[in-house]
C-alpha cells in the first residue's frame, strides 16, 4: 500500500545504509566494521520484520499457547505493508554487505545512493539490483542510446502483453476456480492451477520486462529477472531462470555465507532447505509460502544429491528449432511439479491448499473441465510460441526482425498493442439495481 509517510521509512533506510557504508570503510577495526554491518542488517530486517511479519509471529505465538492449553486473546495489529519494502530492503542490504566484503567502495554521493535505493522502475517489484551493478550507472553521464531505447520499447511492449493480456485474464479464471474450488471437478482444478501458473509468470516477468524496458529508455541497464523458466528441464534449471535477481541474492548473501555446497552432504541439504524456506517466507507471511519453499527444496534435493543440479545451463534446444522427445518429457514433468507447488503459493491457507489438492485427486480428475475459456488458451499458445521462438534472447521479441524479411514484425507489434488495448480496460460487473 502507498502512503506518503512511508517515504520517511525509505529515507531512513537510505540514510542508515549510506552512513554505515562510510563508517565500515573508515574504521580499521574488524569488530567495528562488523558492528556497523549488523546495525544496517538489523535496521533493514527490523523494518521488514515489523511491517511484514509481526502479525504472523504473534498469531503463531498465540496459537502455540492455545495448543498448550493457555487461551490468549489476540487482535491482529493494524499494520500496512509499505509498497516495495521487500525489494528495496534487499537492495540496500546488498550495498552494505558488499562494502563490508570490500567488493565495493562506499559512495560519497548521497543523491546517487538515494536514486539507487529508490530507482522508480524497479522499486516496487524488482529486479533486486546489486549496488556493484546499478550504483556506478548513476555516476556516469548518460546519453540517449537509440538502439537501447528501441530495445527498451520492445521489452515494455512484451511486458505489457504478458501482464495485461496473459496475467490479468488468467487471474480472472484462476480466482474464480480457487475461490470456489469445492464446486469444480478435478480437471477444472488442474486447469485453475495451470492458469495461476501463467498468471504469476505473466504478472511478475511482465512487470520485470516493463521495469527493465523503462530503465533502458533512460540509459540504465538492469539485470535480467526471468529467462523462460517454464521451458526448464529440471527444477534446478527452473530456479536459475525464475526470479533470477532474488535467487542470486540468496545465493550470494545467504547460501555462500552458510557454507554453500562446501562441507558434507548434510551441510548441503541443510543449506538448500534454509535457502528455499527463507525464499518462501520472503514471498509472504503465511505457512503456505513456507510449504511452497519446502516443496521446491524437496524437488531440488535429488538433483543436488546426485550432482545433477547443474546439468542444463543452456536454454533448451539451443541449436535446434524443436525439442527432442526426451526434452519435451523433462519440460512436462518440471512444469507439472511447478504447477503443483504453485497451488500452495496461491492458496489462502494450508487448509485451502490441501482441500484444493484433494479436489484434484478425486474421481473427476479425468473429464472435460467445466470452464474452458478457449480464447485464453489460444492467447497462451500464442505467448508460448513467441517465447519459444525468442528463447535465445533476453526477452521473447527482442530480435523478432530476424524472422521477418518483410517487416511483418511491425504488424505483430500493432497486433500486440491492440490486444493490450482491448484487454486493458476495467470490466464493469452487472449493475445490480440502481435502487
Amino acid at each position, binding site marked *: 500500500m502507498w502512503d506518503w509517510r512511508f517515504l520517511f521509512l525509505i529515507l531512513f533506510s537510505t540514510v542508515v545504509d549510506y552512513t554505515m557504508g562510510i563508517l565500515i570503510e573508515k574504521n580499521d577495526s574488524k569488530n567495528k566494521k562488523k558492528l556497523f554491518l549488523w546495525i544496517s542488517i538489523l535496521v533493514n530486517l527490523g523494518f521488514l520484520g515489523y511491517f511484514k511479519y509481526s502479525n504472523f509471529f504473534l498469531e503463531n505465538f498465540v496459537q502455540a499457547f492455545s495448543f498448550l492449553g493457555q487461551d490468549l486473546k489476540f487482535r491482529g495489529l493494524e499494520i500496512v505493508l509499505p509498497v516495495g519494502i521487500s525489494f528495496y530492503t534487499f537492495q540496500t542490504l546488498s550495498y552494505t554487505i558488499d562494502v563490508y566484503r570490500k567488493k565495493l567502495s562506499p559512495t560519497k554521493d548521497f543523491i546517487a545512493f538515494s536514486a539507487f535505493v529508490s530507482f522508480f522502475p524497479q522499486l516496487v517489484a524488482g529486479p533486486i539490483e546489486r549496488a556493484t551493478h546499478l550504483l556506478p550507472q548513476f555516476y556516469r553521464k548518460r546519453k*540517449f542510446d*537509440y538502439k537501447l*531505447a*528501441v530495445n527498451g*520499447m520492445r521489452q515494455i511492449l512484451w511486458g505489457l502483453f504478458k501482464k495485461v493480456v496473459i496475467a490479468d485474464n488468467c487471474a480472472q479464471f484462476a480466482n474464480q476456480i480457487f475461490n470456489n474450488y469445492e464446486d469444480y471437478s478435478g480437471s477444472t482444478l488442474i486447469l485453475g492451477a495451470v492458469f495461476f501458473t501463467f498468471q504469476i509468470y505473466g504478472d511478475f516477468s511482465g512487470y520485470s520486462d516493463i521495469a527493465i524496458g523503462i530503465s533502458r529508455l533512460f540509459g540504465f541497464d538492469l539485470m535480467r529477472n526471468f529467462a523462460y523458466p517454464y521451458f526448464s528441464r529440471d527444477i534446478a534449471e527452473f530456479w536459475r531462470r525464475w526470479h533470477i535477481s532474488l535467487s542470486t541474492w540468496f545465493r550470494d548473501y545467504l547460501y555462500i555465507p552458510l557454507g554453500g555446497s562446501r562441507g558434507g552432504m548434510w551441510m548441503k541439504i541443510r543449506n538448500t532447505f534454509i535457502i528455499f524456506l527463507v525464499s518462501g517466507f520472503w514471498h509472504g507471511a503465511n505457512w503456505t509460502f513456507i510449504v511452497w519453499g519446502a516443496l521446491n527444496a524437496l524437488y531440488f534435493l535429488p538433483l543436488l544429491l546426485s550432482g545433477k543440479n547443474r546439468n542444463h545451463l543452456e536454454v533448451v534446444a539451443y541449436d535446434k528449432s524443436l525439442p527432442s522427445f526426451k526434452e519435451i518429457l523433462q519440460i512436462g514433468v518440471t512444469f507439472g511439479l511447478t504447477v503443483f507447488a504453485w497451488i500452495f503459493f496461491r492458496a489462502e491457507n494450508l487448509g485451502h491448499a490441501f482441500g484444493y489438492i484433494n479436489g484434484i485427486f478425486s474421481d473427476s480428475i479425468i473429464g472435460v473441465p467445466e470452464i474452458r475459456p*478457449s*480464447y485464453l488458451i*489460444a492467447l497462451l499458445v500464442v505467448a508460448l510460441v513467441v517465447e519459444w521462438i525468442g528463447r535465445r534472447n533476453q526477452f521473447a521479441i527482442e530480435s523478432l526482425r530476424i524472422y521477418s524479411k518483410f517487416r511483418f514484425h*511491425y504488424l505483430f*507489434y*500493432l497486433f500486440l*498493442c*491492440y490486444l493490450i*488495448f*482491448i*484487454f*486493458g*480496460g*476495467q*470490466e*464493469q*460487473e*452487472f*449493475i*445490480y*439495481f*440502481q*435502487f
Partner: protein
Amino acid sequence: MKKFVLKIVIYLLTLLMFTLGINFTLNSYTRSKSQFDLKKQPKSIVVGHSHPECAFNDSLIQEFKNFSSSGESYFYTYPKLKNIILNNDSIQNIFIEFTNNQISETMDEWIFGEKYMNYRYPKSDAFLEKEQQRILRNNSPAAYLNALSQSKKKQLLRVFKNDFDLTDELGGYLYLKRFNTDSILKYSTDKINMQENTIDSFPVSKLSLYYLRKMIDFCKKQQKKVYLIRSPQHFKCSAMKNEKVFQNILKKEFSDVEFLDFVNFPLKNSEYGDLGHLNYLGAEKFSVWIDFLLKKGLLEKTDKQNFINNYIK
C-alpha cells in the same frame, strides 16, 4: 533522439489507424451477423429501466415480452428497441416506461457516467449512431476509452466463439425477492407525502427526453403502436416529488402519445420490494391484471386511461 521520437509518433499514428480500422471492421461485422430474432414471437413488448423490469412478469401475460433492464436510460434503449422492432415483425404494440425519475437530470449520469457506460456501451457500441458516439466521447472521454476497449474485447470474443445471438442481452423480467417497504417507511427519509411536497421546478435531462422522442418517432415510422406507461410505484416514493414537472412535460412534449398510468394500481406494502419497485408478489398481481386488461381489449378502447381507472376502482 529525434529519430526515435519521430518513429514513435509515426508508430502511434499507424496504431491509431490500425485500431480505428479494426474497430470499424468489428462493428460492421457485428452488425451484419447479430441476431435479434425472438423464439416466441410477442405481440407486445415493454422497455424501460428497473421499474417495468420488476413489474411485468411476462410469463403471466399472453404474447408479451419484457425487455426492460436496470439502470438503462433511453439513450441505450433506443438502439436496442430499433433492433428488436426491425427483426421481429410480430411486434405490434410497444410500451415505453415513462416515469418520474426518467426525466431527472441524473439520467445523464446513466448515459455517460463511468460505471453505467462501462456496462451499457459494450452491449450497444456497434448499434449506436454516430451522434451517440460523439456524445459519449465528448462528455466522458476517459470512460469512453475504457468502455470502447471492453466493447472490442466483447466483440472479438463473439467473433472467436461465432456467437451472435444477442437476444439474451436485451433485458427481461426481474424476480425481486425483497420486502423493504415497511422498514423504508419507518426509518428512511427518502419518502414524501405527495400532496405536501411536490415541487414546481426540477432539473431535467434533455438528452434523455430527446432519445425518448426518437424512440417514439421510430416506432411510428415503423407503423407500430407506441404507448408511454407508468408502472406502479408507492405513493410515498421520493421520485414522485417532481409530479407537476412530469405532468407538464407529458402534456407539452408527448401529447401525441397515449399515456397509460398504472401508478395508482392498488398494492400492499408487502407487494413492493421498496418504494419504487414491485417484488415478485406485486409483479404477479399486476401482471395477471395487465393480462386481463389486454384480453378485455384495453388497446382498442378510445379512452384507455378511463378504462384502466375503472378497473382499478
